[in-house]
């Protein structure tokens, strides 16, 4: 073995250590139920929705969905998109009206959610937005996500904080839920109009959010995909160790 080979090896290892900072993220199971399109106007459905609403939602939103002072907002004009979003992501119902709504397992069955959504839709408001992630462009989606979403949700959608609230990770969100959140602006999130984010851009956003579930991680390890601090630590510990190896290799110790 000549001297050059192991030296080159050490340098390559060092380079790898610095470069190799991404990988296979834990594949998040997409568990949220897909919500069907906006056409749910069967009378029986609305009736059962109303009954369920009065049993489970009216303590905050009022018996007629007009809201109650200091407890819950009026749902007049909220529309099917808000009902479907909050129910299918398990954000509603809340245990306490002052809690921040966070994603949990949906507390209603698909059929119940469809009924409640059909009822809330009769109070007026926008339908469930249509979105076709496959028709979107992933590059445009990333550009748009970086501009509009990444400030809070982090560029790979791993979530983050905004003062007074938490921006959730998006790996569990379905395309429809992404579109709904963009249009509603749930909890502390701002909403985005069609003038700001058109249909193609919305499709692209949904496609990009889908992509973040298993990003390419070209470097190898994902390190959680949560940004420079853990990546920097790995870089420092592996990179610094490699530099020490190089220092040992090129140096010689005086023997006494």
């Amino acid at each position, binding site marked *: 073995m000549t001297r050059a080979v192991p030296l080159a090896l050490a340098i390559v*290892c060092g380079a790898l250590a610095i470069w190799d900072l991404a990988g296979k993220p834990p594949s998040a199971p997409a568990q949220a139920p897909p919500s069907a399109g906006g056409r749910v106007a069967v009378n029986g459905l609305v009736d059962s929705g109303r009954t369920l609403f009065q049993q489970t939602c009216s303590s905050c939103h009022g018996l007629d969905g007009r809201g109650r002072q200091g407890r819950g907002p009026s749902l007049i004009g909220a529309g099917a998109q808000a009902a479907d979003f909050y129910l299918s992501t398990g954000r509603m119902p809340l245990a306490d009206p*002052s809690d921040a709504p966070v994603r949990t397992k949906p507390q209603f069955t698909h059929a119940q959610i469809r009924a409640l959504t059909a009822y809330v839709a009769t109070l007026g408001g926008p339908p469930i937005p249509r979105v076709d992630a496959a028709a979107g462009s992933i590059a445009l989606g990333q550009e748009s996500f970086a501009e509009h979403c990444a400030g809070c949700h982090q560029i790979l959608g791993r979530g983050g904080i905004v003062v007074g*609230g938490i921006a959730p990770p998006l790996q569990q969100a379905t395309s429809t839920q992404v579109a709904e959140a963009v249009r509603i602006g749930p909890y*502390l999130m*701002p909403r985005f109009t069609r003038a700001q984010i058109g249909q193609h851009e919305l499709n692209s956003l949904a496609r990009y959010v889908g992509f973040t579930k298993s990003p390419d991680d070209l470097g190898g390890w994902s390190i959680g995909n949560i940004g420079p601090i853990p990546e920097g630590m790995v870089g420092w510990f*592996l990179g610094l160790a*490699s530099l020490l190896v190089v220092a*040992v*290799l090129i140096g010689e110790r005086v023997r006494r």
Partner: protein
Amino acid sequence: MRSLGRMLGFVLAAILGWRRSAQRHAEELEGIPPGGRDVDPRRRHVPADPRAELLVALLLLLTGACGVAVVVLLIVEVANGTQWLGLAFGLGFGALAAALIVAGKRVVPQELAVEERPKFTDPEAVNETVEMVREGGEGISRRGLLAGAAGVAAVGIGGALIAPAASLGPNVANRIDDTPWRRGTRVVDARGRAILAADVVQGTFVTGYAEGASVRDVGSPIVLVRLDPSVLRLPAGRPLAEWAPQGLLAYSKICTHAACAISLYRYPSFRATQPRPALVCPCHYSTFDPARGAKVIFGPAGRSLPQLPLAIDAATGELRANGGFSGSIGPAWLDVDRGGQ
């Protein structure tokens, strides 16, 4: 993690194996029997090696060239400039390190440097010492070449180190107070299309620019939000009709703490149980209350975001500036105008 462990193990094995073989190799070269007696590097004889000297000179010239490249890249804007800068810096320092390694191992004579000098008054001893010092460098045959190359490297790296200092004290001239906004300047989006008052609905957050200004001008970007006029409590001297028509508000997008872009907007869907609307800077979470003249309500920023008075064009519905900012834009610095607090 398993691949990491395997890699580390591999590296360790490689080092151990190589050190042993390298040592044997050195001992064979010097005619020392295996397990040899003396490998003190100071005693090793390194004869003048023109090839090594040439290599060192080339590496030093490469260092200098990389340093010059850094300076050029700092001055000239090119695509992917940051990556090229990093490459030039990395290559430059790598070449310098390689030059030093080769010079240390193959060029500079190694000798034991213990000298006994009882007294220097003896002219013969002085001559001897001078001679000895002179001979010290005799192992190097092309001193001029190496010195020249080292000079090039020093100039290049020195230039590369000094050039970024220009970024520390930019001549901001009057850009902080003399922004592109004038009474009547149209508010446009990043693509230059006019922003209409109707585009900014409650709960949305729109970034606007001064028409005709470069998007890189820090005085240009603003954030536009709309709040219910009944909740607005702007500082005295900012009548709603001139500063917030229909509840539309415009603030500089440049954070007054460290000049990051204000790109977070917190807007509650139900006011009774949720935090109030706020503009938030993603860098250090400085939080500003748009209803109260972007007063700081959290975080390190020291003063409010400067507000831009707005007017709505009656004919077209387009947004226009109704004057200049209420204060100096950008981060705090000595003697900053603290007006608009």
